[in-house]
């Protein structure tokens, strides 16, 4: 499967974030911070990780949650995981 571009990852991340926080996709940019802007609670972050895992078919270790503070962090993190996928 072809690797996703940054724009494609952002589009999927934005969709997940909008569903988890019940906000319009248009309200979410790369700069959006989960805690400060979306008032995320700890259970929201757990939910986000679960939904990212499902959306990108990846396993995200729980300890990596603290690295994901913003949409940009999430996009970078998922892009870095995409790069680790061995090419056939």
């Amino acid at each position, binding site marked *: 499967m072809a690797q996703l571009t940054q724009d494609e990852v952002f589009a999927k991340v934005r969709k997940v974030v909008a*569903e*988890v*926080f*019940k906000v319009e996709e248009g309200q979410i940019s790369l700069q959006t911070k989960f805690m400060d802007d979306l008032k995320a609670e700890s259970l929201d972050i*757990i*939910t986000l990780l*679960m*939904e990212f*895992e*499902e959306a990108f078919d990846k*396993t995200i270790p729980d300890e990596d949650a603290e690295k994901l503070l913003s949409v940009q962090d999430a996009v970078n993190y998922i892009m870095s995981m995409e790069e680790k996928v061995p090419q056939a």
Partner: protein
Amino acid sequence: MRNRVVITGLGVLSAIGQNTDEFWKSCLEAKTRVERIPEHWLHYGDFHSQILSPLPPMDYSSYGIGRIEEKQLDPSSLIALACSFQALDSAGLEYTTLDRKRNTYSISSLDKDRTGVFMGTGIGGLSTFASCFSYQVLLRQKEKLAKAIGQLGDHPIREILQQVHDRMLHARRFNPFAVSMTMPNAGSANVGIKFNLCGSNNAYSAACASGTVAIGYGFKAVRSGELDAALVGGVEYLRDDYGAVFTGFDAVRALALDNDHPDRANRPFDKDRTGFLFSEGGGAVFVIEDLEHAQKRGARIFAEIIGYGETCDGFNIMMMESSGAQITRMLELAFADAAISAGEIDYINAHGTGTRLNDETEAAVIEQVFRKDVLINSTKSLIGHTLGASGAIETLVTALSILHKTTHVCRNLDNPMKDLNFVTKVDSYPICTGLSQSFGFGGHNAVLILREYR
């Protein structure tokens, strides 16, 4: 202080109906829903009984429950929420969004601090626990096994190891919400959270009597004036990947055995009964209110709850005490509570599981205590045994039988074990006062007495 307590809202999910109208129509048509146990369960055990009553596919999004929210709730909680939405709708209690992100509501015509939730369940979120347990136990072992299989080449053992690997079923991940999904109070708590209800909120676990006990305690709280209103009922979900819960009942030979005649195997009070029909689950929830509170808001009243009684056999964890002495005492307590005599009871929704001893003991008590012409049926003859939900679903049938002056037949009752007035046809019956009784593993006996509202 003893306020009158009335039922003003009804909700149900069952094998034969996903709302009250559909359920009642199915009851009167003596519908049932029975199928073979899942084929893959046969890889994990030898089952004496091989039939169950499945729930139809559920669409919880029709209750406004989101995709993510659904993944964080055990099916028993989802059933509790769906039944609660139905009960509130039927009670004409409007709910408006309180918090969009949390997907919660408030009910403006109820005082949230004086409205409680009382929910019965036998096993709570056991299916979630089973699913997470399988993941924990199997994931890493399965990965190792897959690696070893990959190194086997065309070795003859490869096929059987692959089969073992493929039969190690588990969830896609360990659900981080496992604890809040599994705990038995989850159904009760989730209803309180969904509708921002802040009065007493408790789960009642008394095995197959759970639903009856929960309604009984809600009834007492409203009658005493502690609460204006409550959502009360019972829920259960019993399916798991491996049929482990099913095996628990099958191992003690509690389940119906006539596998060759699935449609006829479930036959409470029949001489040829062999056990109960295992149900995948279900639930029923009621809105109950203090009469004055209901009248003030012009609510429709379906029936009145006038008495509750409970005892414990204090005898055996799985076997009913065969003299029925504590069942008789339970009835005496309930009659005293309702200030009526046994002769005033027109209709009994029996526990009626279809097991040898239960029906024998229950029928003997009924013969001894009640009028000869008291009408009797077993809702389990239609939907099987929903364990902790059964008392609530059967209380619903009792309320509807009083309301509509008719009731459903005892399905498959070809050779009654006793000469009692079992319902054999749907007809017009003068049902003014009825009761629903439940008996649970542990020796829990509980009964609710309902009367037409007048």
